């Protein structure tokens, strides 16, 4: 599933893109969690690209993504974020999108369209 399709399905808003061609990047796998240690544990052996979905809107979700080589994050529930999030995304080259959908709705919509863990 292309990022441009994901954005369309979730009616997501771009917060920051680290590279112009990110909308053409394909993700077959997604992972959602608000617990960073769970993400670190469950994705440690993952070799494919994974879309990271979280309601944790802080710099630590970006640092977790960096540790795991996750290039794109979808923030759910439309939570407010501050400038430090964007500054960190720039320094770590991480693409950020935001949807007002809940985690459950976000995962359900992407699963329905074929995305898997």
């Amino acid at each position, binding site marked *: 599933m292309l990022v441009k399709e994901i954005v369309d399905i979730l009616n997501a808003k771009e917060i920051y893109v680290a590279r112009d061609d990110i909308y053409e990047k394909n993700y077959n796998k997604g992972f959602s969690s608000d*617990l*960073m*240690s769970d993400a*670190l*544990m469950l994705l*440690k052996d993952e070799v494919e690209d994974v879309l990271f979905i979280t309601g944790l809107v802080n710099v*630590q*979700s970006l640092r977790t993504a960096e*540790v*795991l080589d996750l290039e794109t994050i979808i923030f759910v529930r439309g939570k407010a974020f501050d400038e430090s999030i964007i500054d960190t995304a720039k320094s770590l080259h991480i693409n950020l999108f935001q949807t007002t959908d809940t985690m459950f709705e976000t995962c359900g919509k992407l699963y329905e369209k074929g995305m898997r863990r």
Partner: protein
Amino acid sequence: MIKVYQVEKENYEDAGKASSDIKRVLKSLGIDRKVLKSIAIACYEAEINIVIHSDGGEITFEIDDEGIIHLSFDDIGPGIDDLQLAQTPGYSTASTKARSLGFGAGMGLYNMKSVASSFHIESSKEGTHIHMTFV
């Protein structure tokens, strides 16, 4: 090569910066991607633990003459009461603040052990010392 990083107590904003830098250094040296990810995971978990649980500490990163990567984490207390219990998946003493930031799932030490080639931990009221190697 040896690098030392200071880690501040409850500085959640900067938590993970040392791990990012270590990952960058190793990536520039062409370390295998899987090994690099293991090191980054272990380093990040340990760095976060210093921020959440200790009064501050430091990280020492070293590559020895044989190419073995060493990571040492030394904090200044208050230490871990029950080391065995602390290494049980799911066991956590993290604060509400730490949990609200996504930590305190009780997987930190377990994760470190599972990705490192070797893992050693000792703790007293004066502080906790962790040493990990990666080959």
